[in-house]
């Protein structure tokens, strides 16, 4: 039995939907405005929200991120009397389950409603195994946890996986995690850098060749597809796989059979395929620069890795991880992080993602030399400048589907709450990263023991033993 929340200012619609929900043996509740809706979704375990767009205290679409961040992370179905393409696009792109135009009918809502609840039931009944191998994948934010859920799922099957994400988000790390959590972990993980391979050699490198098959082929070569037999083949930058090779590769995916260049007989390879790209491969397929039938095969399971700015909650734990790693490598004492150093890290948008963060921490440590604490002055000038320029701009306004402009300050929490939330997260991450070593906690935070104890007590954070 699921808990469904309806956020709509029309009480009649709320009651009609409630009646339908009860007929499906679920529990409805409703709110007539944004504020009431947000209060309910933050304090009650809600599985699904029907969300109207035009509400008396604002535009429902602006609530979507806050609803998704609620403890129960409910799914969202948008209901609107003024359907528009841009509104639908915004809703779907922000992760809403569906977008339905009023007037509502049983036919229009039943299927999306049932499918959403089925998806939610399957998703919540699947837990990450306790022993999931995730070497190098740092973070506990919701976006990363969702990706790790998919890693666990992928690890349990042989299905093809496509990993997408900006450069520096960890696509190879995730490919490695899938391989290591699969039954193929004892066999090879063969990496193919599609962008590095010269086009005239791709076929020979992938499929292999017989001695004498072409000028320069002075011995047999086993191709990478065969090297991955029993294991995993990881095609990195798969968007760069030459178009002329794609039909042959598609056949290999379908039949697991292929013929090395110059060989008469076909050979078999039982490999599991993981592919990755930072390009918009759907657009490439539409433009005809990537085969859509091959793309369809690759996308059996898709993992979209979030950009670092989309999981900024992980910046601190990542920073501490890299701080420790590089201090050990360069055999220097652990350094503290000044609050304004941390502020800059949080304010920057990290176009190079985790890789850029790692290099930034590494360079900051080396520039700081014998200094005990890292300050913004140890960061690259360009980074500090970009953060400074961004902070000098006015608060942005968002244009919504209806053409209304609202200030992004419309629903900002109190400053005290923001500070306390950030402080609590900081100390929780610090305890986790240092294993509860109070000396290190004091060193990194720059606070006295007494101050650290006060904060641990305030936020009910237990020291690890």
């Amino acid at each position, binding site marked *: 039995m699921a808990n469904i929340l309806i956020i709509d200012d029309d009480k009649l619609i709320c009651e009609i939907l409630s009646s339908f929900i009860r007929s499906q043996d679920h529990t409805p509740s409703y709110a007539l405005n944004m504020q009431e809706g947000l209060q309910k979704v933050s304090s009650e375990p809600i599985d699904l929200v029907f969300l109207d767009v035009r509400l008396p205290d604002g535009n429902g679409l602006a609530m979507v991120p806050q609803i998704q961040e609620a403890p129960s992370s409910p799914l969202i179905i948008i209901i609107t009397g003024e359907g528009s393409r841009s509104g639908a696009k915004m809703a779907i792109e922000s992760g809403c389950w569906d977008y339905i135009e009023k007037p509502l009918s049983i036919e229009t809502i039943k299927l999306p409603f049932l499918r959403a609840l089925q998806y939610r039931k399957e998703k919540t009944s699947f837990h990450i195994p306790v022993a999931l191998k995730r070497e190098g994948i740092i973070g506990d934010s919701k976006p990363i946890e969702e990706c790790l859920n998919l890693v666990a799922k992928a690890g349990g099957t042989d299905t093809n996986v496509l990993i997408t994400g900006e450069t520096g988000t960890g696509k190879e790390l995730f490919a490695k995690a899938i391989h290591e959590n699969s039954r193929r972990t004892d066999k090879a993980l063969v990496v193919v850098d599609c962008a590095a391979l010269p086009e005239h050699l791709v076929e020979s490198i992938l499929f292999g060749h017989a001695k004498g098959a072409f000028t320069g082929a002075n*011995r047999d070569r086993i191709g990478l597809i065969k090297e991955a037999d029993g294991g995993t083949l990881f095609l990195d930058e798969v968007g760069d796989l030459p178009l002329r090779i794609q039909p042959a590769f598609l056949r290999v995916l379908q039949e697991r059979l292929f013929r090395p260049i110059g060989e008469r007989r076909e050979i078999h390879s039982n490999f599991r395929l993981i592919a990755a790209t930072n390009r918009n491969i759907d657009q490439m397929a539409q433009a005809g620069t990537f085969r859509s039938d091959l793309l369809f095969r690759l996308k059996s399971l898709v993992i979209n890795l979030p950009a670092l700015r989309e999981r900024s909650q992980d910046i601190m734990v990542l920073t501490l991880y890299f701080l420790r790693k590089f201090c050990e490598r360069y055999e220097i004492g652990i350094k503290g992080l000044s609050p304004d150093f941390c502020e800059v890290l949080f304010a920057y948008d990290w176009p190079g993602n985790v890789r850029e963060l790692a290099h930034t921490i590494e360079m900051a440590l080396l520039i700081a030399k014998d200094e005990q604490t890292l300050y913004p002055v140890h960061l690259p000038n360009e980074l500090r400048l970009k953060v400074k320029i961004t902070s000098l701009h006015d608060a942005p306004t968002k244009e919504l589907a209806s053409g209304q402009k609202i200030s992004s300050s419309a629903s900002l929490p109190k400053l005290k709450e923001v500070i306390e939330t950030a402080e609590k997260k900081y100390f929780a991450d610090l305890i986790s990263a240092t294993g509860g070593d109070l000396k290190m906690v004091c060193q990194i935070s720059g606070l006295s023991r007494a101050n650290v104890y006060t904060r641990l007590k305030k936020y009910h954070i237990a020291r690890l033993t």
Partner: protein
Amino acid sequence: MGILIFSTSGKEHEERLVDLIDALPHRPALEIYHTLLELSERFRRPRDGAIIMVFLLGSREDLLSLLLIKDFFFDIPLILILPDREKETVSLGFKMLPRFVSYGDGTFEDLQSVMGNMLKQYEHRFENNKNNND
């Protein structure tokens, strides 16, 4: 910005490899190391422009030793030139997660194009992290 070579395969192979690199457009900077100690110490210094690594190995034992310190190669694309094509050697080689594998008994012809492509592809990775504080 350049290439870091670890070579235990003998002078002839090393010279062949260096000649190939010299022939690349915009001949990249080169660092060459011959012992594991030298290589480990190198990785205790900043990466400082090393874009890709090439390991030209003379024996399976060298490969086993490198596997013990592979965490040092964090996020640096690797080209691996294996000493032989034995199943076990190749299997160990793939544990390094190289971006490209070649063999010491080959002609190295394919290596030049691969290195050129990789230099172009990866040099942007470090541009955002240049520090002007010096």
